[in-house]
């Protein structure tokens, strides 16, 4: 059984070099998925590369009106950033549904994203919010939309040597609001059976001018359902519009039957949760407009 | 005395006059060899309506013994 090496370099370049040198190497942020996977034998990386000690990897900073979240920033630290929590409450709440307080004190949104689980709680909220991430790799840095990272359960589009160094959220649009809801059997310590993130913008008279709806656990990756967003745009989120959105959500849902939920239950919940999340997002948009 | 009636004796009632429960077990084993081997781990006796833990108790004044499956606990 080859043992795993542990590295804690102090520069992004060193991380990239270590990851590039060994295709089995894994970057270590919070480690809450990685350590479990190693312990269960699902993963046996040649080395683990802890990038938390690199300056700027932990914490939230403003860039213009937008937010830059270091890849090693634990989920609970997002709540502590009042401006972020006010601008993107859906994202912050989604990240703070993961696991328990203990887990969220370690777990990061970047890790949640790169673990590439279709049920990742923070990812639908990030996608709805139009978040991007900055990827560092052997050929430098690139910025990509969050939804382009996961490609299949447990698989990402990251090339060898690449890792996510930060997540970027745009400025909150005027009249914007977001929300994320999930369905789990328990109130905490659970994996989403279905998750729904909604981000929308209302104009002064309450008409929706743009909307993004993203769903978790209804397909191999988190999905952005453009039809669902379109169903809301131009409406005041009346019952017909919400019903149309729910239908679009259900049409876009292609879940599996597994130990956490059935196809029919997941499809039904996707519609219910997206509607409820849209209403919360609208309330937030209205409250802030 | 289910399930021991069907498992061992092919009857639900027997007329015996044992002097105590050890003696009863011996007599039942005589009727159905093998009963004595499982009596301690699997059987409880109720003597005149009360579960009896002491198998040496004199049964001279007892009128009825019910044979029950022994129940454990969690």
């Amino acid at each position, binding site marked *: 059984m080859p*043992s795993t090496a*542990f590295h804690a370099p102090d520069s992004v370049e060193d991380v990239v070099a270590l990851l590039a040198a060994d295709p089995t190497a894994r970057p270590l942020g919070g*480690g*809450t998925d990685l350590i479990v996977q190693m*312990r269960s034998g699902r993963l046996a990386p040649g080395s683990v590369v*802890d990038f938390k000690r690199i300056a700027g990897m932990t914490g939230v900073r403003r860039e213009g009106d937008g937010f830059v979240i270091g890849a090693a920033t634990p989920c609970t630290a997002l709540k502590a950033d009042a401006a972020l929590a006010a601008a993107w409450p859906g994202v912050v709440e989604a990240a703070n549904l993961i696991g328990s307080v*203990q*887990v969220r004190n370690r777990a990061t949104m970047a890790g949640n994203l790169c673990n590439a689980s279709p049920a990742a709680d923070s990812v639908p909220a990030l996608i709805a919010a139009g978040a991007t991430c900055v990827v560092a790799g052997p050929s430098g840095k690139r910025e990509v939309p969050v939804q382009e990272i996961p490609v299949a359960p447990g698989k990402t589009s990251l090339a060898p040597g690449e890792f996510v160094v930060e997540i970027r959220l745009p400025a909150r649009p005027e009249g914007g609001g977001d929300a994320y809801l999930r369905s789990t059997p328990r109130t*905490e*310590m659970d994996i989403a059976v279905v998750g729904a993130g909604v981000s929308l913008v209302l104009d002064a008279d309450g008409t929706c001018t743009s909307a993004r709806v993203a769903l978790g656990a209804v397909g191999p990756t988190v999905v952005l359902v453009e039809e669902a967003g379109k169903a809301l745009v131009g409406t005041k989120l009346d019952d017909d519009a919400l019903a149309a959105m729910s239908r679009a959500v259900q049409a876009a849902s292609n879940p599996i039957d597994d130990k956490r939920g059935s196809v029919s239950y997941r499809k039904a919940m996707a519609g219910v949760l997206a509607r409820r999340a849209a209403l919360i997002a609208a309330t937030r948009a209205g409250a802030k407009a | 005395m289910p399930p021991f009636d069907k498992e061992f004796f092919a009857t639900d009632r027997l007329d015996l006059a044992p002097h105590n429960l050890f003696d009863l077990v011996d007599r039942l084993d005589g009727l159905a060899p093998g009963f004595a081997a499982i009596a301690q781990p699997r059987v409880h006796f109720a003597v005149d309506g009360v579960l009896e833990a002491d198998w040496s108790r004199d049964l001279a004044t007892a009128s009825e013994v019910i044979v029950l499956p022994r129940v454990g606990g969690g």
Partner: protein
Amino acid sequence: MSKIHVSTTLNGDAAEFLCDPSASLLDALRDELGLTGSKEGCGSGDCGACTVVLDGEMVCSCLVFAAEAEGGTIQTIEGVAESAVLHPVQQKFLEHGALQCGFCTPGFIVAAKALLDRNPDPTETEVRYWLAGNLCRCTGYDKIVRAVMDAAAELRQDRPSERTPA
């Protein structure tokens, strides 16, 4: 693979240990440092029995590589009682009978103290959600929640009642 040397501050004192690169902080605490108060109930961050405070935040020590603790500050259940008397949370667990088998108790006490360190007046709901990462199979949580609320009340009064020597 050779072992890694790690230096930490553990319950206020300098502590060093050697660990396998893939060992968890919980493994190091229990097997290298002999502190078996932190328990392993699952090894996957789902039960909270291994809860410790690392650099000011409570974490599942089974979800931290021991090597990550280099230069860090760790508080375990063994360091909760200060000055040889029980912390109010420990005291209230005893007074309310908030433990039965006691196996999950260290994790609950570390987590509850972490809550009260930052929120001196939590609601019952806040206590329940904060402690949702700690599984208890014996008590049904009722007496645990009461003990934590009572400890909070006592800490707010800043009037330490009689406490048992640790």
